[in-house]
């Protein structure tokens, strides 16, 4: 009877201290993150006051307050001057407007919540629905772009002609603004009867192949001369050297590139939605928001895109960890 609790107490106390240690470590790691978030939110809220001051003053006047300046005068004043002239009005109306120039963080969060959790996924007002529409071409474009990037890199590493001829073109391709070339891709493909998913995917691929090519060229050239000599002493074929030495050496570089590429692919898919005046997708949300001055919708679509990009990068990071661990490269 008496020794049962005596046996149990140390067990639970060990577990609780272990748990406690883990929690305290978690909090410890969380502090800097929270601090940065708090700083960003603080700057954001502060910026809302002068950005929205003109509208705040107008709203105050409409509500019956008499201000020393007229709306016409305020139009030529900087936001900060309006705040100095009417601090009370500017402050009271800064964070609650329907169409603010700069929505406050909580307004964006509320809109995000409303359009993701509160709406059915099939609803056209659901951000999850629109993100899903954009995700299709993103993933297809990422796959095409990564594959093209890897193949180009293999060609560049193995052929001197390709090394000298392809790389300048690849670099040139990235100096052309994607906004200029996206409508042309869509129009040209549309004229040969291709529309919908594929044109957007091609714009994604256009943005995502480049980091993969650059990273893979570096990675395929990572083996030391001694590593390559070893293959030569075994009379290994070029294909063998690629498969058994160059490709495994390049994997850490590949994953770093894929993270950049997947985020670029999402940007490409969003931009691909803009010139067609699309009605579905994250790009369409941005476009509709800017047509109707729905700044909160624009910002929440932007954050939605950022969250999707972060999720995609996290998936690649997970793949990276699993792969490198299985290869014995992670220690």
């Amino acid at each position, binding site marked *: 009877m008496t020794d049962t609790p005596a046996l149990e107490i140390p067990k639970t106390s060990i577990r609780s201290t272990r748990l406690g240690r883990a929690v305290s470590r978690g909090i410890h790691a969380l502090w800097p993150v929270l601090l940065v978030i708090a700083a960003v939110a603080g700057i954001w809220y502060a910026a809302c006051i002068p950005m929205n001051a003109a509208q705040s003053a107008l709203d105050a006047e409409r509500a019956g307050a008499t201000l020393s300046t007229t709306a016409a005068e305020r139009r030529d004043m900087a936001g900060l001057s309006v705040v100095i002239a009417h601090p009370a009005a500017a402050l009271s109306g800064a964070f609650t407007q329907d169409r603010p120039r700069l929505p406050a963080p909580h307004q964006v969060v509320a809109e995000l919540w409303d359009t993701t959790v509160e709406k059915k996924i099939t609803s056209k007002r659901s951000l999850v629905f629109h993100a899903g529409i954009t995700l299709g071409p993103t993933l297809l474009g990422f796959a095409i772009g990564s594959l093209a990037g890897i193949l180009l890199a293999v060609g560049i590493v193995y052929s001197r002609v390709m090394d000298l001829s392809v790389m300048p073109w690849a670099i040139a391709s990235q100096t052309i603004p994607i906004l200029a070339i996206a409508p042309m891709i869509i129009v040209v493909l549309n004229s040969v009867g291709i529309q919908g998913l594929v044109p957007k995917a091609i714009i994604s691929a256009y943005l995502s192949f480049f980091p993969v090519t650059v990273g893979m060229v570096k990675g395929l050239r990572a083996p*030391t001369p*001694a590593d390559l*000599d070893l293959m*030569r002493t*075994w009379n290994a074929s070029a294909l*063998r050297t690629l498969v058994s030495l160059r490709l495994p050496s390049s994997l850490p570089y590949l994953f770093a590139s894929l993270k950049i590429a997947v985020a670029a692919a999402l940007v490409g898919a969003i931009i691909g939605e803009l010139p067609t005046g699309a009605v579905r997708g994250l790009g369409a949300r941005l476009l509709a928001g800017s047509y109707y001055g729905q700044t909160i919708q624009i910002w929440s679509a932007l954050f939605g895109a950022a969250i999707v990009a972060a999720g995609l990068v996290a998936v690649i990071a997970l793949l990276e960890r699993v792969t490198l661990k299985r*290869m014995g490269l992670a220690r």
Partner: protein
Amino acid sequence: MSAPAISAHNLDLTFQTGDGPVHALRDVSLDIPDGEFVSFIGPSGCGKTTFLRCVAALETPTGGTLTVSGMSPDAARRARKYGYVFQAAGLYPWRTIGKNVTLPLEIMGIPRAERAHRRDEVLALVELDKFANKYPWQLSGGMQQRASIARALAFDAPILLMDEPFGALDEIVRDRLNEELLALWARTSKTTLFVTHSIPEAVYLSTKIVVMSPRPGRITDVIDSPLPRHRPLDIRDTPEFLAIAHRVREGLRDGMQAA
């Protein structure tokens, strides 16, 4: 007696560099009979590694003739006549020790069962049989170098080329590996070419010591060792050993003065 394992006549190798030509090898002539253990010793730049790389067909001589197993070095390379051990172990970090050892066998198209058999055999030979499933970073430097020797032995080539394999290891590990290497050589009787900076190492291991000197890289002395094939470590304190070491040192000094 059969044809020499390696035969070089008036071998020349000149590298064209930005600072003008560099004579890495000048007029090198040497016959190495089957089954010998030959050390190449000399200061940096004397061409000992270059000579080894010529034998392995990793460099092409600019003059003279060189035959390996009675054929051109490149034909010998394609026929997999030699195993090469580099100064760095050069194990691929994404492969276990066992998989590193079987890599050349995979490349040579040897069936899986045979690969496993040979892997176990050579890993036992270098006393790493318990480490087949470890990754290279889990092993010490000396163990990694033993694994790389096992890899060079795995496909049972008649010639073993070793380029300062123990150069990066400390004296104690080096002594032990020297002893093991000698035992290994006694068992397999492979023709071994061994590049080193260390006089005791060269004298202890070799049946033939080739002393080289730099600018241009050339042979200054070839010493046939009178030491018996069986050599305990303490043979290094005998007068015969010291006499050979002395002659090697003299050869090195003469080469430096001439240059």
